[in-house]
Each structure stands twice: as structure tokens, then as C-alpha cells.
């Protein structure tokens, strides 16, 4: 409401952008609230996992299925992608060239897709060891939680491609800026969720 403070990280709106500033603030705030709702969604799926982790029903158990090496690589990939997205945000904030912004976004995309590729390989190797979701409550919960994160990442990748398309078409306009800023929040959020998955699912499962 107040128009005195016209600044928002990454957005280059000037003093003359009162209403636009209000609009973008509402947009970002709304996205934070959406992430909060999404965090609850993940929290509940985590809770399901924790209550079902011992319900292996005679099927394969975590240590027989998890490949910590692959998961560690996935973690590094995702952390790196968060860093590169951070570089993209900085490029946006300091109005570096569009090419630089797109460059960092593309690196992020490549890291994200590689992450998904590794994750899919994990799933395939689990399937080969009878680690299928219909085998037990534990595996059901696993294949609810980890692929849910994976689907979010896949969604983020599609969104990223669309943003690059929008920038290519319209340049770095207000809406593209909003898009990059929201996707950045989303991406870092997924990073945090992954850290939780890494700890609760993989480290605790192998401990």
C-alpha cells in the first residue's frame, strides 16, 4: 500500500511504478503463501512416509534398495542448480545482459534434467529389486514422496523452458521478471525439500 519503498530484490521498478510495484508485491506474497501450502503438502507426505517406513510387509527394506552414491550425486546436482539459479537471479537484479540471464537459466535446466535422469535410474534399479510401490506400505510411501518431489522438479523445468521462451519473445519484461523470481523461490524450495528427503529418507533409511 505504501509507495515510499519501491524496491524488491531482483526487480528493477523505479519510483514511477507504484501500482506495478503493489501488483508484484501481491504476486510474490501470494506465491510465498502457495509455497507454504505446498510445504504442508510435503510435510504430510513426509509424515505418511515416517509412519509407514517400517511397514515393509516382508518386502525389501530401505538398505536393500537405496543407492547412496547416486543419491549423493543427485544432491550435488540439485544444490549446484540452486547456485546457478541464484546467479540467474543476480543477473536479473543487476540488469546484466539477457544472454547471461538465459545462460544461467539454461545451466540450471541442464542440472535439473540431469537430476531427474539420475532419479529415474534409481527408480528403475529399485524396480529391478522388487522395490515396486504395490509391494508394501513402505514402498507406497516412498513412491509417493520422492516422485512427488521429482514431479515438482519436472514442473519447474517445464516452467523454466517457458520462461526462456517468454524472454526470447518479449525480452525481460515485468512478467518475465515475476516469473523468474517466482521460479527461483520454487526452485530453492524444492532444494530444501530435497535436503529433507536426503536426510529423512536416505540417510535415516541407511543408518
Amino acid at each position: 500500500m505504501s509507495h515510499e519503498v519501491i524496491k524488491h530484490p531482483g526487480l528493477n521498478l523505479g519510483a514511477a511504478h507504484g501500482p506495478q510495484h503493489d501488483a508484484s508485491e501481491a504476486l510474490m506474497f501470494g506465491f510465498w503463501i502457495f509455497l507454504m501450502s505446498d510445504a504442508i503438502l510435503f510435510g504430510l507426505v513426509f509424515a505418511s512416509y515416517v509412519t509407514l517406513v517400517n511397514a515393509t510387509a516382508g518386502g525389501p527394506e530401505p538398505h536393500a534398495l537405496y543407492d547412496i552414491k547416486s543419491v549423493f550425486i543427485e544432491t550435488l546436482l540439485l544444490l549446484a542448480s540452486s547456485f546457478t539459479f541464484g546467479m540467474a537471479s543476480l543477473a536479473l537484479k543487476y540488469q546484466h545482459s539477457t544472454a547471461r540471464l538465459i545462460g544461467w537459466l539454461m545451466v540450471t535446466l541442464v542440472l535439473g534434467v540431469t537430476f531427474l535422469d539420475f532419479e529415474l535410474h534409481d527408480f528403475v534399479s529399485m524396480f529391478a529389486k522388487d522395490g515396486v510401490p504395490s509391494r508394501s506400505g513402505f514402498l507406497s510411501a516412498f513412491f509417493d514422496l520422492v516422485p512427488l518431489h521429482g514431479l515438482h522438479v519436472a514442473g519447474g523445468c517445464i516452467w523454466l523452458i517457458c520462461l526462456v521462451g517468454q524472454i526470447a519473445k518479449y525480452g525481460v519484461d515485468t512478467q518475465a521478471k515475476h516469473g523468474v523470481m517466482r521460479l527461483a523461490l520454487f526452485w530453492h524450495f524444492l532444494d530444501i525439500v530435497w535436503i529433507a528427503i536426503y536426510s529423512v529418507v536416505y540417510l535415516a533409511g541407511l543408518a
Partner: protein
Amino acid sequence: MSFAEQFQHPLGRLSLESLPFWQMLNDPTRGNVINGVIGTAAALMVVIGTLVTIAMITKYRKWSVLWSQWLTSPDHKKIGIMYVVLALVMLIRALMEALLMRAQQAFGLEGGFLSPDHFAQLFSTHGTIMIFFVAMPFLTGIINYVMPLQIGARDVSFPVLNSISFWLTAAGAALVMISLCIGKFSTGGWFGYPPYTEASFSPGVGPDYWIWALTLASLASTFSGINFAVTIYKKRAPGMKLMVMPLFTWTALCTSIIMIFAMPPLTVAMAQLALDRYLGFHFFTNELGGNMMNFANLFWLFGHPEVYILVLPSFGVYSELISTFSGKSLFGYRSMVIATMAIVALSFAVWMHHFFTMGQSANINAVFGIASMLIGIPTGVKIYDWMWTIFRGRVRFTVPMIYSIGFIYLFVLGGITGILLASPTIDYQVHNTVFLVAHFHNVAIPGALFGLLAGYHFWFPKAFGFRLNERMGKVSAFCWIFGFMLAFFPLYALGLMGLPRRSVAYTEPSYVPLEIAAFLGAILLTVALVTLVVQLWVSIKQRDKNRVFAGDPWDGRSLEWSVSAPPPEYNFAVIPVVTGRDAFTLAKEGGKAYPLPESYTDIEMPKNSVMGPVLGAIGFALAFGLVWHILWMVILFFVAAVVTMIVYGFARDTTRIVPAQQVQQEHRRWLDAVAAATGISRADEYQSANQGLAEMTIHEVPA
């Protein structure tokens, strides 16, 4: 047919057997014919209703108006009205089902006329519809209409998202409606506990209809909650501090907060049940490590806060109109706000009381029982504060006020039976009996529905520019109140006499008189609904006598009354500056109620968007494909949904400008009308003299 085969078949599980009259034709026993006729009649009502509506719109050439003015409109007022219309249409169906169920039980000694399966579909759809497609759209509609006006905003923060929310809700409602015509609905009740709703025990399409209808509604409500909360936090007029907001806006905020936090558990429960049913997961099955208690926890983690989503907006409505119709400022505003917030917090801490009987320890049960009773404290405070608002006021017994008085009396009773149920010891006896049914109807009908109906009467003149017929309104209100009492008080007694809920038949002759009384109550409630429809009809006929263009028919206290009725699409020609609570009353007292602005500026408003109807249609088709295992449909519409959203991301230029000149013209026309109108005293509220301008003098009577 195996699962894979079903998905390979181009029509999935669809076949002629899915039609409601198929069983009747192939196996015409007496029971099958009765149930087939009822089912077919219901399906025909849906089909004919739809066809007649389409024919009427075509005949009067209203498609383009409907499309451009309503269906694609991002205007919160129009979306709000569409929500209420949806709620009322669904109310008609769900009330018919209630009537059928009451008739069945009235004749239910050793039989009745409905088959158990039909009866089970009735109670499942009745509950599902009443919660998700009557109460939720009704309150979302009223919040949509009123809240932005009350805070001095031109629209909600995300108008297109608002439209999408509405259309997703409508898609869910359409899915429940189509289940009347094709296939069967779930028989697992509105909370559909597994393992009963798992594929091994309910292999048909019923639970799938239920799952996807609820998923659509749940997504829609999450978006609505986000939208409302952001609007209230970010779009208030200058001076409208949080502690200055009208109480209805406060309750809208609290409801939104609950929606944001409580809808995800429902989404998760539905998704996990769907995974169980579709892909053979084991979340809630008996076997292989599944555990249905997780479902109970997830569902009620949503389900209990949901109760407060339903009831809080109505609390807000009561606060507004008890204050307005007592001609007095609301007593204990700060207490009211704190109490509402306390209810929000507590609503998340009591879910376990829905399954005291699941075998947890006495300590856990006692803690959750007492936590549930704690909600009685803020609720009690609210009741007392409403009473103190009436105290030393000047109460006008208008239609909304009659609902409010009925509410105070009946809700106290509902609260008392709620506290009884919150005691695990008593719950062990009356849980899952019709005592429980009586209790939650006792809070849902007087608590939520009366408030929404009162709000409908209160704000109708604002939305349409003319008042509703008072006499019919009073008849309707009394029918609702006494119909409720007659329909549900006997159920308390029946519950104490051991009648389980959801019984299609019973063998105790002593139940019969009470069941007949309850059936008469259901008839009276039906009369109440009919009266409401007739009232609307009569009021439209008499609309020219009852115009209130000046906009303030009830001597209103908050900002929505400070604009014309109906308001312009941009709500406020000039955004008002707020100086305190009861902003419009303050302005009227200060003689600044209808200021003439020095200048007008261009107003930027969102353009119409097809996103709502398109995503709603896609959501419906996707859900239908999932229900019937029609693989190509699922893939096609999933891709369509993703593509639609991508395309929308590329949309630019989504706003349009209302020129200052047009604003000035419209505003001046209204100010002229106000100047020409005569202010009336409250005694003439329901006379034609009421053109929407209130007499400014207040006659205080000292001790």
C-alpha cells in the same frame, strides 16, 4: 476385465450398464423398478434441466452476453454471484436427497422402498454436495462479493485465479451431477473411510467420482484461500488497518488461513487413496503394511478445520448484521477478533475427536476431548458479545435478524451437544449414531447455512439493486428454523436410542414416530427452500418498487454500503480513505458519506479471461476420464491442461483502462440519484420509500 484391459478399451469402463435404468430393464423386480425409476427421474432432471437452460439461453440469444459478462468475467462480484447460484442449484439436489432419505427411514421399519445401495449413494452424495458444493461455494461466493467492497478494493489480488477457482469448483459439482446419469456415486459416505473405499471392497466407479470431485473442490479452495488472504493483506484502502477491518472481513481472513493449511491434507488423502485404487499402492489397505488410520488422521486434519471454514464466515455475517439491525456498534470488537483467531488455532488441534473409538489411550482421548471443549470458550465469547451488541440497541426484526436469532438459540444447543460429543466417554456411546448426525446438522444448518441465507438477504439489494420481498423472506426463515427443529431434534432422541447413522432400515417399532416427525421436518425444510425460490421470483417481479440504487438500504456500517447498488465494476470511483471502524457510519455521522471528488483518474481493470472456463472444462474431462479409466482422455486433457497454462504464461496485456471520463459520468449519475433520494427512518426500511438512503440523525436514549 483386468485393470490394464480397462485402460486399453477406448471407452474404459463405460458401458450400457452404467445407465441408471439398465438394471431395472434387465431385472425388473419391484425393488429394482422403484430404485430405477427414482434414479432415472433424477438423471432426467439433470439432463432436462441442462437442456432447458441451454434452450432458453439460445432462444433469448444470451450466449454472448453470458460468455462475455459472466462466464469469462474476472469481476469478483460476478464470480461471487455465480458461486452462490451454483450453491443454490446444488442445494436443491442435496435437499431432495435428504427428503428421500428421511422418507425411506420414516417407512424404514423392516424395509422401506429404497435399496441399501441406493440409500448409501444418497447419504454419500448428500454429505459430499452439502459440504463441498453448497456450503463451500456459498461462503466463497459471499466472501468474493463482499470482502473486496468492505476493504475498499477494486477486486481481489488475482482475478483470473479467482475465476479458475470458481470453474474448478463447478467442474467438481458437474462431476457429482453426471454421476446421476452415468454410473454410480460412492457409497462410502462423505468421508469415505478406506478400506471400504479401496478397490478390493468398492471396485466400481463410485469412490473415483468422489475422489476426483473432492480433488477439484480442494484445489479450488486452496486457490481461493490464497487469493483472499493476499487480497486482505495487500489490497486494503488507506487507513484500513487490520484492527479496523469489518468483522466479516476478519472471518474471511481466518477462513482463508484455514483453507490454505487445511486443504493440503485433503489433497494428500485423496491422492493416496487414488494411488491405492489406480496403481495398487498400499496406503490404506488392510494388507501389506497399509494403515487406514493414516487416512483418518489426514482426512480429519482437513475435516475438522473445514467445520470452521464453514462456520466462521457466517459468524462474520452475524456480527455485521446483529450490529446493523441493532443500530449499534459491535460490542467487544477486539475480543471478537481474538476469539476468531483462537478458533482458527484450536481447529487444528482437535481432529482426533472424530475417532475416539479407534483405540488410542485414555490420555490422548482426554487431551483431545478437552482441547475440543476449549473451542467452546471463544465461541461462547462470541455469543455473549453478540448479546451485548443487542443490549441497549434498537433491534429491528428483519429477515436477516430472524435468522440471527434462530442461530443464537439453536447454535447454543448445537454447541452443547458438541461439548457432550467432545467427551470421549459420551462419544463412545453416541459416536456413529444419528445423535452425531443431529449434532453436526445442528451446527451446520443454524451455524453456517442460516448465516449464509441471512447474508443473502442482507447483501442481495447491494448486488442487484432491489430488496427481496420481506413477507416471503420471513415465511422462509421460520420454515427453515422450525423445519430444522422438527427434522433434527428427533434424531438426538433416536441416537440415544441406539439408531446407527446410515441405516437404511431398522427393526425397532419405537423408532417410527420419531422418524415420521423427522420426515415432516424435512418436508418443512423443503417448503422453506421452495419459499426461497418463490421469494426470488416475486421480488424480481416487484423489483421496480423496491429499488435501492442509492446503495444503503439498511443504514449499513461498512464500506460496501457507501457505493451504488449494484456497484460499478471498479467498485469505487475513488478509493476511500478510512478513519476508523464502521467506516461508513463514521462518514455518515461526519456528513462525509457521499463526497464529490475533485478529480477522477483512469482505472486499470483486468480483462476477461477464458482461462477459467477452459481449465474448468479440462478439469472436468480429465476427472471423467480418470473415473472411467479412459486412457486417451486422461492423456489428452492432461496435456491440454499443461499447454493451456503454458500459453497463459505467454499472455501479455491482460488489463484494460476504464477512462476517467466514464468513471466521472457514472459516479455523478449516482451522486445525483443520492441527492434526489429521501433519507428514511428505520421504520420504513421495508417500504418503497427506501431508495437506499438512510436518515442521518440518531436518536440516542440515555439512561
